[in-house]
């Protein structure tokens, strides 16, 4: 809870009322105790929707976009802010867990069983 409160405060600090609103949304979602992957999914969905929002809010038709392009696409701005907030929270949740055994060795694990060495690996070597 303390981390979440700090995180919401950080969101407010960096994004103002928008960050606070997103933080409140996070709080609400967090109260439902969803798994970590749900935050990642939320981040992904928000980010994927951002270009669609830009197009929906209008692409410039003239030769220049104009100085109001940023402020005239608020939904895209909010979506990306939400995406970063969700992903950031998911990352914090992951960091708060104990690192996996493979993490310490900096080795990549493919989560499916039956992994084989990749044909793209050449001269595989450990850290110098």
């Amino acid at each position: 809870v303390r981390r979440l409160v700090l995180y919401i405060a950080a969101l407010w600090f960096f994004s103002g009322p928008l960050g606070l609103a997103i933080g409140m949304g996070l709080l609400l979602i967090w109260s439902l105790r969803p798994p970590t992957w749900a935050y990642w999914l939320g981040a992904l969905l928000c980010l994927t929707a951002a270009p669609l929002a830009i197009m929906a809010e209008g692409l410039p038709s003239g030769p220049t976009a104009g100085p109001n392009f940023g402020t005239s696409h608020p939904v895209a701005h909010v979506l990306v802010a939400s995406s970063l907030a969700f992903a950031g929270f998911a990352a914090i949740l992951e960091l708060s867990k104990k690192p996996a055994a493979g993490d310490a060795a900096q080795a990549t694990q493919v989560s499916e069983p039956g992994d084989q060495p990749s044909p793209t690996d050449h001269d595989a070597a450990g850290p110098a």
Partner: protein
Amino acid sequence: MSVMTVEVPRPVVRVNPRLVMWVALAVATIGPMFIPAPGRYFADTQDTLWFAPGWHLRHSLTIFQPDVFLLEWPTVGVSVALIWLLKSIGLSLWVTQRIWYGLLAFAGAAGTVLLVQELRGRRTLIAPASAGLLYVFTPFTFGYGLLYSIVFVPYFVLPWLLLVTVRGLRSPSLLWPVLFGLSSFLMGASNGAAQIYALIPPIGYGLWAVFVERTVSPRAALRFAAIAGGFVATLNAYWLFAPRLVDIGNVIQYSEQPKTINQVSSYSESIRGLGHWQYYGGDKFGPWVPMVRRYLTAPAFVLLGFAMPVAAILTAWLVRGWRTRLFFFFLAAGAVVGMAGIFPSDSPAPFGRLLLLSYRHVTALAGLRTTYKLAGVLNLSLAVLAGVGLEEAWRWVVVRRRRAWTAFRQPMLAAAAVAVIGANAFPLWTGEYRPVRTSPAIPEYWRSALRYLQQSNGEYLSFFAPGALQPMYRWGSLLGTVAEAEPTVHPLYAWPFPEGNHYRTNMLAAVERPYQAGVSSTRAAVLFRYLGVDRIVLQNDIDWQRSNTASPVDLLALALDPSLQGGLSFGQPGQNTFAATGDAPPDSDAGRIERSLRPVQILAVPNPVSAIRAESGPPVVVSGDAFGLSAVAEQGLLDSNPPVLYSGTLNQALIATLGKEHPLFVITDSNRRAAHRFNLVRDNTTYTLAPGEVVEDRPIGWGLFGDRPETQTTAILEGVKGISASGYGSVFLDQPQYRPARAFDDDDRTSWLVGGLEHRLGDWIQTTFERPLDLASVRLTVPAVFGRMVRSVQLEFSTGPPVRAQVHRGSNEITFQTRATAFLRVRIVGVTTQAFDNPVGFSEISIPGLHVQEWVRVPSDLLRTATGSPLAMGTVHSSSLAYVFERARKQSPLSGDQELGIARQFEVPESRSLTFAGSAHLDSTGASDDEIDRLIAGPSDIQATSSSRLSDIPSFRASAALDGDPETAWISAGDAGEWIRVRFPARSLNHLVILPAMGSQGRRIQRIEVSFSEGEPIIASIDDRTGSFDVRFPPRGTSEVQVRVLDTAPSEPFKTAGIAELQIPGVTLPPVAGEDEPPCLRDQTFSMDGVPVGVQIEAPISDVLGGKSFSLSACESASLSLGKGVHRLLAGGALQPDSIRLMSLRESPEQVSPPPPPISVRHGNDGALEVDVFGARAPFYLVTGNEWSPEWRASTDGNPIGGRSIGGSLVLDGSSLGWRVDRAGSYHISIRYGPQGSYSSTILLSAEALILTLVIVVVQIARRRT
């Protein structure tokens, strides 16, 4: 016999896939650079870097740069060295440039490849290669990086910095922190912000490794940081510890500001690598950065622009077991937040507010306001994540290839990766990468002209006109003027951006005024001599519309200046001097001139003086700035090239010392307190502001003389406490002719107008009274302008409810319940709808009992400084004194005058007798017919006036119908409704004869109405037999006859009317002789402290009526006696003054000042000057030609010149650094720039550190191999 067949095994060619990857990477990064616009030069960072890298390198050793185009770039030698090497082996300019770009891109990609391999602990292909390509091919590379490739170097060094950090934290070897320092050295010193931002990932990774992953001990991290920091500091000491703070301050104060920088940097724009404000702007010629337009406008590119961020999120989510991915995610998220900065700038988040606060109060942090440069951090994070994600996805697909239904995923994945990389790199492979500023080879005529200037130059400078922030030529564009391609011609040009201590910028702006503002010039050579200029290069091939500067026609002001001499021209007539479309039509005067000019025209300054020189003789001390200096020169007071000092730079001791040299003190109305736009060379200055007044957050003036209020010319409002408005004129240009005070000046010809090219309802104008007024009515006059105008207003008061009212063109009386109010604010709440978005407002806001007069108060610094020192005051009392006032006129040929007259408040130190002189012209636009008659013929009891004159031509005035000459006539600007009126001593009349003027189809007027001061009007029709009106009526006494035109002949093509003769028995105004001088003018239009001053026009009447400028003097050569104290001079009316000079000469002894001593000058390699003086007999002034800067020191045999008592160095001749030297004999003077010593030391330190670094690297690598 058997034959044995031996099979020779075929050699197996094993191709090293990593080698293939590196070769492919090199081809992919270097090759495409050659595709766009082969043969053309892309304007990049600074022209001298490319055209004269060797020259640039030599100058890199000097911290003080006399050339304006080097001021910001003396310390970029590291990068330039490579460019110089490439050019030295004979490569052409464009090939050199493309190789440089390719090497940068390859270096960036290679660093990313090695970084990914290091981070992942394996040498794979897909992740490193894709990350490398994704990192170097981005919108930021094409929209910003390659346009400023020297500033962009840190972007490509960034992966290397992170790489050596990762290695260094894992290994205790000395090699890695040393390499870190070396990498930072390779970033160069071009910018600062980019270098600082490049340190964020390594620092962040260190913290991550210590506190999150806990793979590195704090001790090891600190050890690495300490060693690396030490090498960074010493290798970069040459720019970290000896910067020119004044130029850094200029850049921070006058270049892009946070609100502009973060205007478009929303999260959604920043995360796709855009958000830099320049990408979104443009002008009528197109976008500023066309290379990124497709990223903004094409849906496919918008989608693909989010591919990297989406891939990064997927990687951060799904690639388990590699915790560092979260570091890169946080790095990317932080970069996005940082790039957004204070967005939205009108209501920033607390973080944004903190940024603004820190920018405002900490100079070093203000240098980091260009947050778009964080794109490097963002792009690297996204590229690493996306590359790793792609490889993991590839592995995942390969593992599942055995399942048939997933077989298509592999090619799809490859196609997606290629599509994203290809989309990001599209400007290269499609050849669409073409910056706005690009050029083919410099035309031959320019090469000839530059060769000529090289030959003719020695100790002089060449002035290139006109100036512009970013000049563009019709044949192509460099980044600056073409002179930068050949800097050895010692070019000088007016760059509007303030450089150094701004004296030179101010001086060059003053030099440019005649052709930028469209005012006449007769003594331009005087200022050019002071600048050390001997040749003036008129660049007629500048695309003046795109460059927003003076046209070739405007430059005629210089070509026709009688003080300059014609010289050589280069190129063919009409070659690159006009545009095929959009310019003046070929048959217009301007069109003919443009087509007859050659592209380069060189004028000569007669009797030029060297930029480095000795001067002597009575100095002229100017109170004001270089615009005042220009005005003083126009008065002929500088014809003998006397030393010129600014009173704003003098102290009491120096004023006292000057007494022996019999100076002339000149107080001008220059150095006006006004806000400037330093990105424009014209229409860039507000109206003269009141003391302490500011305009939004715009910089005030040039900041000369420490911005002391007494050195500035300011406005004073009499009758009200203040007048303010929400704005005025256009938001894009300064139009002081529409300033708020214009609505309260009792002059219907002037207006406060606001909102040009905008739809801004709610604009307001407010006058604050000196004390609360009981107000019950207001009269608003809406000007008759073409286009839209105010339709409804809301009056607001300090007490009582607001009042709404509809208004129409002309005068509108608005009454309301009486109330006592401290102010009146008139808010525009409705305008008429028109296609043309002209500014709207009021020509007059009349408040009963209120009269407002605007005065301009001239600087008082001379008297303020001298007061308190009897010696200094003694110098002022015993010296000649002059006041030179100039009417503030237009700032471009098409704009309006800021002032219609001269209203000045000035101070006289003691009772003085002053002669009066000036120049003026007939204000034919504003003068009424009877005012013109009074001006040229004196007062009369017969006054003839009219509703209008055709084109305001004075000879078409009403009195032309009373002069008994049918060849002259009153001609109006319209037809029906126009009138002519004659007032005379009352007399009895019973008939009138009116002879209409001839039109092209016969008599113009068909029917008239004649009215009198007494009795009913009479309507009359033309007598077709006589062609006149014979109006007969019963006798009546009258003192006025007015004839109004009712009908005109419909066949006439022009809407004018005219009367050749209006015969009123006994009423005539005999014509004046054109060759006579007008009589003495003595009325309130020229007054001193309210008392009329008799003014004599020194020109024949024909010249006056012809619109020529003429001289003024006091009638009967009388002088004005003014007592000690403050005085007010008011001049205006039909006789519109352009300048006024009041002068009080003191007799000086008949001794002739000895000439200045001969000197010889040697230039040191470090910018120092060694001057040998031969046989000095009296004090003289040593002028160095460099712009003044307080850090310069001069000494003779180790003794400083001009000690503390007289302030050391001086600003001489408008802008130059100099000294007053009072030592006789022959001796040597050493002139050195103070910070050069520490700069040289830091260069040495950096060089030693570089050698040490290289030795350590070689030794460490050798050890590792053994």
